[in-house]
């Protein structure tokens, strides 16, 4: 039976842990709000860009662009977005598991599946697993901006155009709500069916293009890809904080439960000790009679 002092020590240690998890939860909640704002702020641009592409597609008979060209897929790149830090529940393992499954299922279909990692956790996972890591972007989360997303997009686009890869996928956690994230593995290159979402409000307007459609399209396409990467980054960051918030909330509740149970045990033990002592005194007095 544990001594009273041991139990007290235990309770104190659980309380300390609880304080940490509570603080982490609060921090995650604050960061989550910021991340959500960033997602909302990024919407107008993405929507306008989509609309421009849709308008352009509606007017030209089929868009022809190297980035839209699909070819027999032999080599595949997967960009895996994880976080740099752990303690976020299943956030990282959900993505890595999804990508592992994809690699396993498609091992026979493709000649090579290579990963590009964003985030330390994913990088460590695939290194341990012995997969071929093409490129890592360490420390990217400290400077999430459109410019960084653009850089990643440029790197893979160059590979695609050079024929080093035939298709590029993005794997990340999509932010649904603070308590729910969904792992998404979607194709990024070649770009698929842009503009098929139909014509926007300006679809009936006949734009004049300057310098001409071709050149506008040439600039729109890389931008559309960069936006995809940027969106995935923002979603991933928001998901990370959401996942950590709920994980830390659970941990805090579990700690409360544990403290409750330990306190009950502590009181029982204390009561038992008192009773035992009383019995000894009574029986001692009895013996003296």
């Amino acid at each position: 039976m544990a001594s009273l002092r041991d139990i007290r020590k235990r309770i104190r240690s659980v309380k300390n842990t609880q304080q940490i998890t509570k603080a982490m939860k609060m921090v995650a909640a604050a960061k989550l709000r910021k991340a959500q704002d960033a997602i909302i702020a990024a919407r107008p641009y993405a929507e306008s860009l989509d609309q421009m592409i849709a308008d352009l597609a509606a007017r030209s008979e089929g868009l022809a662009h190297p980035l839209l060209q699909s070819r027999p897929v032999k080599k595949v790149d997967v960009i895996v977005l994880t976080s740099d830090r752990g303690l976020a529940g299943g956030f990282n393992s959900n993505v890595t598991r999804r990508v592992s499954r994809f690699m396993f299922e498609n091992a026979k279909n493709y000649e090579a599946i290579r990963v590009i990692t964003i985030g330390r956790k994913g990088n460590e996972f695939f290194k341990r697993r012995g997969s071929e890591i093409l490129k890592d972007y360490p420390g990217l989360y400290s400077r999430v901006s459109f410019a960084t997303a653009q850089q990643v997009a440029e790197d893979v686009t160059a590979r695609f155009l050079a024929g080093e890869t035939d298709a590029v996928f993005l794997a990340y956690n999509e932010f649904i709500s603070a308590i729910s994230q969904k792992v998404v593995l979607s194709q990024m290159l070649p770009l698929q069916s842009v503009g098929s979402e139909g014509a926007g409000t300006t679809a009936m307007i006949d734009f004049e293009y300057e310098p001409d459609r071709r050149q506008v399209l040439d600039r729109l396409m890389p931008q559309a890809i960069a936006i995809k990467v940027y969106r995935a980054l923002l979603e991933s960051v928001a998901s990370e904080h959401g996942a950590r918030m709920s994980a830390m909330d659970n941990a805090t509740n579990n700690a409360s439960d544990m403290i409750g149970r330990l306190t009950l045990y502590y009181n029982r033990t204390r009561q038992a000790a008192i009773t035992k002592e009383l019995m000894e005194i009574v029986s001692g007095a009895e013996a003296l009679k």
Partner: protein
Amino acid sequence: MAKITVEIVTPERRMLQVQADEAIVPGGEGLFGVRPGHTPFLSLVEPGPLTVREGGSQQVWFVAGGFVQVANDTVRVLADQAEPAANIDVEAAKRRLEEAQARMKGMTAEDARYQVEAATVRRETARMAIAKR
């Protein structure tokens, strides 16, 4: 008198949305002005000054390349970056310019990064030119 709506949107957020009399945009083929009733127009935007005139006053922004869409008396500039001319940090721009120029040394036009660095040089040069005015 009719007004136009001028919007500057970057991938990160909407920077500006105002009513104005006229906007002068650095288009792919030179500066062009937009006033109410302008024909629908879609153009590339080069790094340069975006002037928004309203009444007697005007504000100048620096926009770093992108697109502009003119329709229904709305000028929507989609720029990679944008900032008011008054906020330009000339020192930082100069530093970026010099760094890009240093990296470009020894590169040839065929280099993969050459275009990127050349774009940086163009952008920062335009940014500094606006700040100096």
